[in-house]
């Protein structure tokens, strides 16, 4: 009987620890998905003598591919 209780207690502790570890694992991942596509660089005037070389660099920082035009109205 004592052995069964000890086993149950061990299982409960392991389950609680597992849940905690799952939360620790999942929460940062969810936060990282909050923004999918970001502006990384905006060079506004790289070459004064010919003023059309400005550029914007855009990157996907999510954990998956992003369809940029999937819901174009």
């Amino acid at each position, binding site marked *: 009987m004592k052995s069964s209780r000890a086993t149950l207690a061990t299982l409960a502790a392991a389950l609680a620890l597992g849940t905690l570890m799952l939360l620790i694992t999942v929460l940062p991942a969810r936060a990282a998905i909050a923004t999918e596509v*970001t*502006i*990384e*660089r905006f060079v506004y005037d790289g070459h004064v003598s010919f003023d059309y070389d400005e550029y914007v*660099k*855009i990157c996907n*920082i999510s954990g998956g591919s992003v*369809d940029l035009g999937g819901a174009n*109205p």
Partner: protein
Amino acid sequence: MYNLTGTLGIGGCFIIADNAKAFSDTWGFLPDYEMEPTAGGVSDTLSVPNLSGSGNWALNNSEDNITLWKYEGGAYAKHDEIAYGTTQALYTEVGLVDTGSYSITCSGNAAVTRNDVNSDTDNMYVDFNCTANPNAVTLQSLNTRDFALPVGLLLTTGAAIGLAISTVSRLTRKR
């Protein structure tokens, strides 16, 4: 306002230049898209797709905004934004409570660059900083990601893989 199309793969980046020839003359390679194909009186660089949209991209460098819009819930919302200029520009990125006047100012030639390329805090001052005189930066000194080739950008084979999000991102630039 300009429409972005295609699929952007994991960690993928792409470059939108004002004019492809001018960009190539400065940086030594062609961009992924151009917005003003004949700016400066040059011929259109046919190998570089023109981004669909409209707007005047001539700069006076006193107030320049770049805004990335996301279409969700039936409306456009700001997704990411840079406000640059000696004239204060309204900065109202999603998630930023205070919508006062903000801008990053740089002196001379400059780039506004994201500090942590894997983070977006929705606070422009945290996310971006000035890099002075980008013309002095050689391609060799830039890290790989700075000018990585686009990953999956031109894949137009239907649904995106992995985390497929149905979005419309739009790019605007305001003088």
